[in-house]
């Protein structure tokens, strides 16, 4: 039974509510509202309705940049979905096998990079992949792949993919842990019963354990989605705000930063920045909404 609320309830709740409202919820709403305003040449701000969005979606200059960042972002997310999450599943499945010696040590090492700053990881890989230093080329020559080495971070065609893989390298530990936790939470009896009926390790994994952890895989995917669609730090650390070469690594996060603060000869605009943030909000919201309203329910139905 719940206690009746009095002064204590208010005192307990108020500080958190005030800070959260003032510095998270309210600024978000204010940003959505500011997206409907425009700034003229002398810095006067006035209501312009949907004009900023018309620019972002139909003006050639703006839409070119937005489409480029959006396409890059989709590719960035696709690489995470197709590489990070399957690798995480594989590692978690191996770790959760019974009687793997040193599983705790493996777990500890695999989770380590997620604790390091993206800035450190970005620079570390930049050094390692640098043709100037030549470490990667040397290592690849050792295994006979020397001629396949290229300045991947510097080439327009490969830069985004390389950065995405660096990000995968760093963060694979998080989905791995979530999946691992779900796998070890499966009751022993379920697996045992199947083993008694003669199902092999593969059969047990595919037809018993995998369906049971589908909700976790869904959750991992939506967390990846939200993280990827507001990613900024890694690109900024490795490539700077211009997301070179030739904007080929530009994500919505870096475009938002440039729109807001300006770069080179372009001056920044708070109102255009707010409009872009609104579009990012809508992208993330539709992804999260789709997940909670449609996908999660189906996954849970299969799992139960």
């Amino acid at each position: 039974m719940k206690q009746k609320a009095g002064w204590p309830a208010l005192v307990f709740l108020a500080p958190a509510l005030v800070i959260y409202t003032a510095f998270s919820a309210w600024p978000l709403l204010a940003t959505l509202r500011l997206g409907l305003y425009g700034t003229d040449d002398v810095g006067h701000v006035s209501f312009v309705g949907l004009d900023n969005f018309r620019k972002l979606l139909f003006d050639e200059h703006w839409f070119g940049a937005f489409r480029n960042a959006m396409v890059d972002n989709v590719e960035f997310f696709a690489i995470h979905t197709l590489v990070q999450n399957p690798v995480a599943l594989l590692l978690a499945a191996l770790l959760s096998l019974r009687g793997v010696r040193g599983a705790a040590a493996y777990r500890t090492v695999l989770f380590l990079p997620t604790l390091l700053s993206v800035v450190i990881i970005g620079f570390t890989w930049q050094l390692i992949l640098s043709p100037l230093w030549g470490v990667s080329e040397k290592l690849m020559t050792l295994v006979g792949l020397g001629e396949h080495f290229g300045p991947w971070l510097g080439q327009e065609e490969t830069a985004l993919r390389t950065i995405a893989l660096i990000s995968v390298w760093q963060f694979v530990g998080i989905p791995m842990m979530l999946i691992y936790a779900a796998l070890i939470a499966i009751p022993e009896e379920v697996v045992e019963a199947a083993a008694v009926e003669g199902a092999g390790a593969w059969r047990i994994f595919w037809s018993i354990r995998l369906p049971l952890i589908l909700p976790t895989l869904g959750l991992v995917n939506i967390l990846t989605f939200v993280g990827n669609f507001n990613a900024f730090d890694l690109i900024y650390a490795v490539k700077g705000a211009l997301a070179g070469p030739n904007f080929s690594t530009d994500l919505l996060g870096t475009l938002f930063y440039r729109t807001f603060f300006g770069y080179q000869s372009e001056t920044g605009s708070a109102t255009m920045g707010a409009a872009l943030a609104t579009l990012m909000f809508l992208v993330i919201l539709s992804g999260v909404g789709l997940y909670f309203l449609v996908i999660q329910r189906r996954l849970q139905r299969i799992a139960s």
Partner: protein
Amino acid sequence: MSRHPIRASALGRSALVHLTLGGYCLLVLCPILLVLLNSFKSRAGIFDDPLGLPTTATLSLAGYGKVLGDAAVGHMFVNSAIVTGVSLAAILLLGAMAAWALTEYGFFGNRLLALFLAFGIMVPIRLGSVAILQEMVALDLVNTLTALVLVYIAQGLPLAVMILSEFVGQVPQELKDAARCDGVGEYRIFFQVVLPLIRPAVATVAVFTMVPIWNDLWFPLILAPSEQTQTITLGVQQFVGQFATDWNAVLAALSLAVLPILVLYAVFSRQLIRGITAGAVK
């Protein structure tokens, strides 16, 4: 059928498992080791033999000398420690208080408030950056650590409240009833009965919350980029950009940024991982 083939296949399977896990661990460790190793070498050593251990000929601490000689580095560490420490303490205390209020007391709009807070878990606070900056300008808080602390508290509270609510709800009813029968006030019940009971959960939330704050680049960059208020993450970013061609200094700066985390992780990894797996099972 002899037992031999079964044992051989089990052995083969186990070898494959260790090969995969061990191989991936190498992939994780080698880049970090490479940086640490080369940070102790002279420039010639770094370029002539990047994969070798430092020898008497190539051993050099020039990079460390340069980084540590920069007085600003110590200052940045202090800034990061203050911001992370104060935010963390506030998130844990205010988060536990809010979780207690939402689970223990019945009032109108209770559910709605919980949902309002939960919204912050899925929607990144960064999207509100434009208005946050305007707000900080209006409050005259730009380039202060206070601005960072306030934003990080707002960022960390939703997840903290959600996880802590789960644990606060498990505090036995008899304990609370007994305390109330004895005439103990609501505030004392929270601080002396509930808070000590949920300590393990608080530790888990602490780790989840601390790492993103310490490592954040975005808010230090837009809210507090001044020399006085730079955090270590932003500082490393600027330092490496500035000394890009001075490989000794860059490698030393990266190593110095990694080492404290390696040490902390070596000490706390057990609790941390247990916390994550237990938290996720819930």
